[in-house]
């Protein structure tokens, strides 16, 4: 038992933080927001120069086969800059194919995912129909679905690989509140689909990776809200003193930190539990996703309030965090849903 980063993990975390601070700058993210929500330059350097695209991909397929803890440090860093990159899809789809793909599926897709040449995303709908290898139905809220080349789609028990340019697939992108991660709608009519060899295994680990990604992004985002607000609190003066000297103000900052420290425990507990195959993993995932999303939302809301008028402007970054926080709360099930899962583990089904 040693619940602290190894030197290697600390180094990955530091590298990732530095990378996103330098690359996923506010102006780059805003350019992406005004276009298709994809900061291509950052993504390319992330996958190629930094070589982190293959973080969760086995070595024989061009990855570095690191664990969830390592991945979480990276997602945390990306979240702290609200980077407009399809990291969530990479985590979900990369680990799903690695766990549930045939050898052929793995060798075809994993190297391209690791290099960033292929952008992946996924989604599900229980009403998806499969008929003679053709998929039909509608799937909403596919993150970065507008720019993905590859999807894994599921009806909850099976999973299929679908290529974005397949006949019969149309992708619509409604205006999404969080412009750093547009949510697309896929409409399929008899689209060619390649079933994953082991759909259940793929969905299991894919979901876990997706939840870890969201929880870790939320942690990074929440910490950034606190850090930036603290900077402002020391600079801005009213009534002849720094606003951070008012107790009502500083207690609110303290409350943010109290939640964030718990969120940090949650993310790394869940990530470790997956890496170690612990029987707490499921509980930890539900705890991490729900707790971190709520923490991020609270911190982002407080960031706006504690900045006053400037916090309500488009020009200030507070709204980027606020909107990302809201979208993390709803993506991959709400906090209430996750807590009900936990309640069922403890109390059984409600009568």
């Amino acid at each position, binding site marked *: *038992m040693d619940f602290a980063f190894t030197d290697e993990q600390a180094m990955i975390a530091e590298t990732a933080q530095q990378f996103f601070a330098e690359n996923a700058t506010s102006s780059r993210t805003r350019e992406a927001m005004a276009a298709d929500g994809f900061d291509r330059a950052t993504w390319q350097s992330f996958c190629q120069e930094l070589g982190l695209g293959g973080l969760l991909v086995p070595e024989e397929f061009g990855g570095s086969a690191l664990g969830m803890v390592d991945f979480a440090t990276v997602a945390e860093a990306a979240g702290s800059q609200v980077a407009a990159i399809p990291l969530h899809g990479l985590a979900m789809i990369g680990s799903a194919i690695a766990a549930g793909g045939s050898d052929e599926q793995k060798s075809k897709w994993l190297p391209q995912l690791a290099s960033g040449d292929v952008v992946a995303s996924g989604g599900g709908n229980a009403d998806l129909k499969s008929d003679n290898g053709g998929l039909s139905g509608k799937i909403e809220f596919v993150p970065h679905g507008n720019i993905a080349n590859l999807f894994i789609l599921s009806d909850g028990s099976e999973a299929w690989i679908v290529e974005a340019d397949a006949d019969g697939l149309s992708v619509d992108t409604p205006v999404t509140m969080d412009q750093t991660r547009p949510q697309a709608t896929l409409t399929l009519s008899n689209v060619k689909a390649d079933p994953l060899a082991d759909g259940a295994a793929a969905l299991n680990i894919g979901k876990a990776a997706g939840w870890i990604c969201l929880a870790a992004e939320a942690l990074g985002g929440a910490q950034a809200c606190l850090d930036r607000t603290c900077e402002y609190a020391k600079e801005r003066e009213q009534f002849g003193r720094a606003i951070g000297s008012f107790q009502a103000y*500083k207690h609110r900052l303290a409350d943010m930190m109290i939640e964030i420290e718990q969120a940090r425990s949650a993310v*790394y507990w869940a990530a470790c539990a997956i890496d170690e195959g612990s029987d707490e993993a499921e509980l930890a995932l539900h705890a991490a996703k729900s707790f971190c999303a709520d923490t991020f939302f609270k911190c982002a809301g407080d960031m706006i309030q504690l900045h006053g008028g400037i916090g309500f402007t488009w020009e200030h970054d507070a709204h980027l965090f606020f909107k990302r926080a809201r979208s993390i709360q709803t993506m991959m099930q709400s906090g209430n849903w996750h807590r009900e899962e936990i309640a069922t583990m403890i109390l059984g089904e409600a009568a």
Partner: protein
Amino acid sequence: MKLGFSKEDEDFRSECASWLNDQMSGEFSDIKGITTLTEKAERRKEWEQQLAAHKWSCIGWPEEWGGRGASLAQQVIFAEEYARAGVPGRVNHIGIELAGPTILTFGTDEQKKRFLPDIAAGKTIFCQGFSEPGAGSDLAAVRTKGHVENGEWVVNGQKIWTSLAHISDWIFVVTRTEEGTQGPKGLSFLMMPIDQEGIEIRGIEQINGDAEFNETFFTDAKCAEDSLIGAPGDGWKIAMGLLAFERGVSTLGQQMAFRNELDEIIAAAKSNGSSNDPLIRQRIAKAEIGLRLMRYGALRMLSNQDHSKVDGAALTYKIQWATWRRGLGELGMDVLGQGGEIAEGGEYAWNTLPNLFLYSRADTIYGGTNQIQRNLIAERGLGMPREPRGK
């Protein structure tokens, strides 16, 4: 980063669990499951001695002072198994967790020899004399006075809220030993025997009807000159060092006691059907999450070796657990419904959950109130300006 325990540690776990379970089903079965601080105090002093006789009393201390020099993982395991076995809290917890580590860190070899083996053996029960009527959150406002006379310290003044003073053998006090000083300067840290003419103890009744804390009056109370820890004037530094020990491994044992409390709420909810109420289900899930995060927060803080920056997990730990437990008290009552407000035995004495509801109001007060915790977090953790002070 690794959460699992090694095979050796798991063997150690079985060893402690089986010894503790034997004790609780055998010779000490009469104290199993007690959750208050003082119930059956005399038997629990015997239990302290039993622990010491088998070297289970202060396993993290060096061997020469009665410990085992146990690793962090082993201390974690022992704390967890201790509570899991339903063993009552240590009546000498202030001696073991506060006085002992303070003497280990700041005491002379003589003082270590004199106090540590007896603390470990449960022969010297300690209480903490910090707070005074005029010095609560503002601990540095202490007015109790001490001076040396004929080779002895002589102390005059009053302490208040002294938990367990009525069953203790010794008290450590922060006292003003330099005439004319104010605030943290001129304070000293003394260890005093309680059984003497100059010390009088009067119980104070609490909101749950118990009287676990006291007023402690000092009228020419005396202790030997070498009962001073550190140098005269070091009192503040030592008191602050001591408060940091409060966040040690023992917190994990405390969490297992919380686990037992939450389990009792879960059992009550299942048996009276409130487990079907969607809002209660959400609150129980939140309580479960909070408890788990407390455990992993504590493990993070205990594993942390990087002392170059502020440890956020450690700094936020007190307010986190205290607030969580206060919420747990409310959840317990909401699960019990109106029946929770009726005492069973016809006396003003409460079962675990109603008592938790009442007692947990103190958790957010002692050891630094929630407001003081927020000040500390904002100032030390986040670099905010310090509170303005009056005279």
